[in-house]
């Protein structure tokens, strides 16, 4: 059985100006030990989908889905108590901003030991030993002294390592990394990604990497799900995705990679992700798509089969990336 299975997940936010659909029919199946990247621009509903699974959305959110199970637990209508015994233990998450994601009033040691006490009921000594072990595992130098440091006394990279240590403290089956490197500088980014993949190898946990950085995807993931405006538009293994994207949006994202630029100017995707008031009638990407025609603008596109990467498109591409862009 799949570790995580989500079918047709939708999230709507009640706002003062009506409801806003942030996630629209999100699907994902994860097996033990999978590394999946979820890619998309800001506002494409990547984070929101996973916050919904964790139960961390504010009360203004309405979550609906056909299937949402994790490790045999139905996450729909799960009791808060039961959910709390899962999140932070079997399913954990790290966030984008390490500097603000740790409580400034408590030492990092306190914050990591807290998780150990709540979920594993370890005694003080065991907690201390395990915390040191975890700090060593995530490559924090001088773990014994670092345990009593406050978040503001450490760098962003170190704080992200603390976040990772906290997330893997209870040996989770799934780690969701929500743009874990966005707020860090490039050299630290590489270190953190390397740490995440090596931890994944060591522990065999499943890893979801939410990102908008195609470079990160290429380096770490096995499988990629491309999100646009709350919908999954394509899903493929990494290599075929990079060589033969099937959705025009994926092709456009790849074309925007600096490594692939052929002219002096980097190609961009004109426009922005549609918001609450400018959602197109047909294909959501049609206003920005170079290949869109009348059909795209009026009719919702079908979802193709696995041979075309589940592309949500009227005219899926099937040629190598260099030619399609």
């Amino acid at each position, binding site marked *: 059985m799949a570790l995580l299975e989500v079918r047709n997940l939708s999230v709507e936010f009640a706002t003062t100006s009506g409801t806003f659909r942030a996630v629209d029919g999100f699907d994902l199946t994860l097996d033990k030990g999978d590394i999946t990247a979820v890619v998309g621009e800001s506002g494409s509903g990547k984070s929101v989908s996973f916050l919904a699974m964790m139960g961390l959305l504010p009360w203004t959110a309405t979550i609906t889905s056909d299937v949402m199970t994790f490790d045999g637990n139905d996450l729909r209508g799960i009791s808060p108590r039961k959910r709390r015994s899962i999140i932070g233990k079997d399913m954990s998450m790290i*966030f984008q901003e390490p500097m*603000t994601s740790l*409580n*400034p009033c408590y030492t990092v040691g306190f914050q990591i030991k807290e998780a150990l006490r709540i979920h594993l009921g370890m005694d003080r000594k065991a907690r201390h030993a395990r915390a040191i072990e975890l700090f060593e595992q995530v490559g924090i130098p001088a773990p014994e002294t670092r345990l009593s440091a*406050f978040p503001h006394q450490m760098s962003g990279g170190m704080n992200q390592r603390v976040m990772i240590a906290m997330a893997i403290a209870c040996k989770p089956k799934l780690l969701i990394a929500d743009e874990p490197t966005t707020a860090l500088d490039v050299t630290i980014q590489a270190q953190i990604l390397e740490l995440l993949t090596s931890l994944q190898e060591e522990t065999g946990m499943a890893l979801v990497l939410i990102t908008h950085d195609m470079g990160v995807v290429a380096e770490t993931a096995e499988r990629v799900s491309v999100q646009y405006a709350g919908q999954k538009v394509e899903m493929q293994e990494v290599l075929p995705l990079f060589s033969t994207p099937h959705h025009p949006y994926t092709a456009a994202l790849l074309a925007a990679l600096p490594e692939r630029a052929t002219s002096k100017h980097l190609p961009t995707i004109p426009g922005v992700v549609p918001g609450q008031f400018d959602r197109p009638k047909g294909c959501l990407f049609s206003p920005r798509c170079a290949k869109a025609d009348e059909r795209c603008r009026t009719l919702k596109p079908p979802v193709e089969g696995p041979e075309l990467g589940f592309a949500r498109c009227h005219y899926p591409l099937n040629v190598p990336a260099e030619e399609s862009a």
Partner: protein
Amino acid sequence: MLNFLLSRLLTFVPTFIGVTLISFSFIRLLPGDPIIVMAGERGVSAERYAELQQQFGFDQPIYLQYWDYMLGVLQGDLGQSFVTKRPVVDEFFALFPATLELSICAITLAVLLGIPAGVVAAINRGKLFDRVLMSSALVGYSMPIFWWALLLIIVFSGWLGWTPVSGRISLLYYFDDVTGFMLIDSLLSGEKGAFGSAVSHLVLPTIVLATIPLAVIARQTRSAMLEVLSEDYIRTARAKGLPPSRVTYVHALRNALIPVITVIGLLVGTLLAGALLTETIFSWPGIGKWIIDSIFRRDYPVVQGGLLMIAVMVMVVNLTVDVLYGVINPKVRKS
């Protein structure tokens, strides 16, 4: 830490001088002459008036009077009351415990009710409890304190007869001051019913004096909590699977208390100002009533000295709050 304390103490100097200047000139700006007031209806002869003027130094130019006053202040001498002829410092410390007792009770009540109320309102934002609480806080904050006091007296002392109207303890009891705090002294005296009487005298003044601080603390706690609850680290705490009570009281409240503590420190000034009115209304024999009475008697040294002592007290409290800050907020501690 030492540097921090010294630099803060240095800022006391201009504040201190400012307060002496204001209190010295304010009482002299009031119409009325202390000698005429002292003489009362009998009046005073021209020679005697001149003699008294010389005795009190009123014949000197005003800047010389201020200079003399400051020389005394710097040596710890706040002068003598015109009325009782006792040193102002002695009178202050004789009456201060009464004010301190009332203020401690009031601020304790305000903190114990205000912080939980603010927290619960923040968690139930927009719901009935939040609305009722925030509207009452606004009413409490804007209500004239003397009117509120009279209202309570009418209801609880007049109609219901539950509480006494004035004083610190019933005249039935008499015992010596030990600490100056009636609650403690009445217990120490061992007299039956004395403690109950002291408590019943304290209830209404405490409620009146606590009203504004309570409203301010509740509102401040609520808004600080709302801000903190939307922080990333609260999401992290929830993502760890912590129970909501732990997220609220361990992770959020500690952070939310930082601005609340500052406000509590600032409220001490408000509290002592409120004590002036509250003590007058309830005939509470503390420094508030003492200063008000002295203003009517044009008792210059008492008014000057009393205001100065209050100002120094507020400054010391604020310094203490700044130091306390480091205990709660680790970011301040090591910088």
